[in-house]
């Protein structure tokens, strides 16, 4: 059926995250961006709320909330409404936890999930992006060579969220002779594996979330490190969980820009009137509102397909094509509405512009 109705439980979760975003994120966002760091205190509070790990089953020490990509879309939107950078930091562990929940073997879950079900923030991250400008999942170059019962991983991963702090990486690598996405597998690689080196990335946006460049130089992991065990895993699903999560962040980010712009347009007087009373500005705002809606349903649809266990390739690609484009346009027009004030850092919008540009080219900040 077609329905736009969150469950009561989802509404409760959404409300609490909304509150968290208002009380814990907005105020510190700019300072975190300028300092390019995320405070431990914030991460711990986000952890207490269970943002990244609430869906770990009780059997592994978790809160046992229903595994739901749709719930996670709602959470991501609300968090990014607070600040996309801080949201990326808080949700980074989910980029490993949720794929592990969906695609990991029983042994892998037993081994790794309890560590993420504890009381302190624990970073883990999906290592997906690579060095190439024409990067594309299907052409990914990191190699995992099976040899003597081990996998030897070699390649450079870029823009790994919370990479410096991560204790465990979920590394997507090419394994075997098959071409395209079918030839990819994912590997659980502890950060202290010899051959792994991590270096901080300097980025344009999402500066509150520390990203890292992670090099794998013949890093050896046991055969058990392959996600899903010997059978491997569905990397397309893994990627779609990650892509759709970034798009969900783009929803909250865009909604915030619209709200900032509405407030400014009502307050700012030019030529004797609030600029919001000018059609040129009012229509830009209407356009943002229209697209925000459209983006949201496309993202929900992609998540809903994932929730049903479907591949969601088409739905994710449609949402990605549309939402990334519109999220950037919304941020760009947000700056335009603020005029000169959109360009200076005394006002919020310039940070949201940078975050939009960063967010909408990434496919692996977190995972639904």
């Amino acid at each position, binding site marked *: 059926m*077609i*329905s736009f109705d*969150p469950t009561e439980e989802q509404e409760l979760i959404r409300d609490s995250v909304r509150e968290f975003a208002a009380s814990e994120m907005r105020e510190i966002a700019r300072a975190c961006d300028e300092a390019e760091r995320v405070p431990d205190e914030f991460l711990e509070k986000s952890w207490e709320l269970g943002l990244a790990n609430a869906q770990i089953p009780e059997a592994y020490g978790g809160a046992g909330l229903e595994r739901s990509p749709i719930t996670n879309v709602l959470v991501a939107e609300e968090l990014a409404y607070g600040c996309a950078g801080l949201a990326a930091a808080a949700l980074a562990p989910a980029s490993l936890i949720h794929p592990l929940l969906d695609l990991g073997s029983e042994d892998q879950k037993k081994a790794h999930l309890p560590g993420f079900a504890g009381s302190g923030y624990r970073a883990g991250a999906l290592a997906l992006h690579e060095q190439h400008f024409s990067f*594309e999942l299907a052409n990914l170059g990191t190699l995992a060579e099976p040899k003597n019962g081990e996998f030897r991983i070699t390649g450079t991963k870029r823009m790994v969220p919370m990479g410096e702090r991560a204790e465990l990486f979920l590394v997507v690598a090419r394994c075997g002779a098959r071409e395209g996405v079918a030839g990819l597998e994912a590997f659980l690689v502890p950060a202290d594996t010899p051959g792994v080196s991590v270096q901080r990335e300097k980025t344009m946006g999402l500066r509150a979330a520390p990203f890292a460049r992670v090099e794998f130089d013949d890093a050896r992991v046991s055969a058990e490190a392959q996600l899903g065990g010997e059978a491997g895993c569905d990397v397309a699903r893994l990627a779609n969980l990650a892509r759709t999560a970034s798009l969900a962040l783009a929803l909250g980010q865009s909604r915030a820009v*619209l709200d900032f712009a509405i407030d400014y347009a009502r307050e700012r007087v030019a030529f004797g009137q609030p600029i*919001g009373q000018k059609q040129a500005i009012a229509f830009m705002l209407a356009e943002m509102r229209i697209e925000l809606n*459209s983006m949201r349903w*496309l993202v929900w649809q992609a998540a*809903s397909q994932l929730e049903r266990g479907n591949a969601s*390739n088409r739905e994710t690609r449609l949402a990605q094509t549309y939402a990334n484009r519109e999220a950037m346009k919304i941020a760009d027009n947000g700056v335009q509405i603020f005029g000169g004030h959109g360009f200076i850092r005394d006002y919020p919008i310039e940070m949201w512009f940078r975050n939009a540009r960063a967010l909408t080219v990434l496919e692996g900040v977190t995972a639904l």
Partner: protein
Amino acid sequence: MIDFQLTENDEKVLAEIRRQGLIVREHARYYDEHEDEFPPDSLPEGKDLPNPFSMLGGRNEEDTPMGVIVLLMAMAQSWGDYSVRIRNTIGGLGNAALRASGTEEQMLRWNGKTLAMAITEPGCGSDSKAIQTTAVLDGEEWVINGEKIFVTTGCRADGVVVWATLDRAAGRSGIKSFVIMKETPGFEVTHKEKKLGIRADDTAAMVFKDCRIPRDHLLGGNEEIPKHGSGGFRGVMKTFNMTRPSVAATGLGMAMAALDFTRDALADEGVEVDWERGTHSRSAIEQKLVEIEADIEAARLAICHAAWLAGRGEENNVEASISKAKGGEVARTATQRCLEILGAVGITRDHLVEKWCRDTRITDIYEGTGQIQRLIIARKILGYSSAELS
């Protein structure tokens, strides 16, 4: 529960409409090229085909709610053709107004009649408060005088719901709607418009000259003029919140047809989207196909959302306008871009894409242009009155 997957029941109804749509299409070009003829009330090929609306009986809770499925059906129907139908059983826009604002007695009285809706005048397009047509109470009759254009199904409808003002000084509040049946003296359909698209469609211009109708033909029956600004216009707006998503759905169905044709035609020539791939390994044409499909899907969901709200009885003013703005824009640009992809052969009348491109161009204009929809949305989100933002 948030969900976007059609059930088997849903699919069955829609598949039937599309199957009938393919039959309908065989006649689409003919009526486009013979705009002086009306498509028949029903096609002979349809005699033994089920009425998809009757298939809505056996539905259950898991199926898509009625408000939404009906619009998906509207999309599927215009996917076949805008003007030609297996059978033309659906009322005009006036019927929607009757359902929304009529008294129970009125609904009964005109049950089964097709009613068009006459709002626009030569001097006013989207500016409905500038309506010049007047209604004056004379004894137990209303006397109507005025001229209307762009009346959809106006030539063939049994009657028309006409917007007229009781008091021009009262602005919007003075506007009421009246049911006027075809045989009424003083009511004349002056001509059928020649158009860019939906040429087989019946778009009438009409004149009312001292046209007298019984007092109880005032829709809803309330003769009072509400105080200025107190929202006597709301009944009309309520109609719109049901019809705007419908109009958008109708336009979008044609855009879907254009995309389907384009996708199939290119697939025949070896160009096909692989959904697993991203931008960096697509061809330019594949990318365009993905973008068009994303736009269509966005519009489809916006329409579903507005209808879903309406179906739950929730306020959907902004969402109805969003669905119309998005639907109208996508309907026209998607078909235009399909032609861009198909190149020189696409613009010949060998195929229907060029027709869909012409047909969809009205979607962003009638029932409130995209500009009007944006004004409505902007006012609402900025909290402005129509005086503050005009």
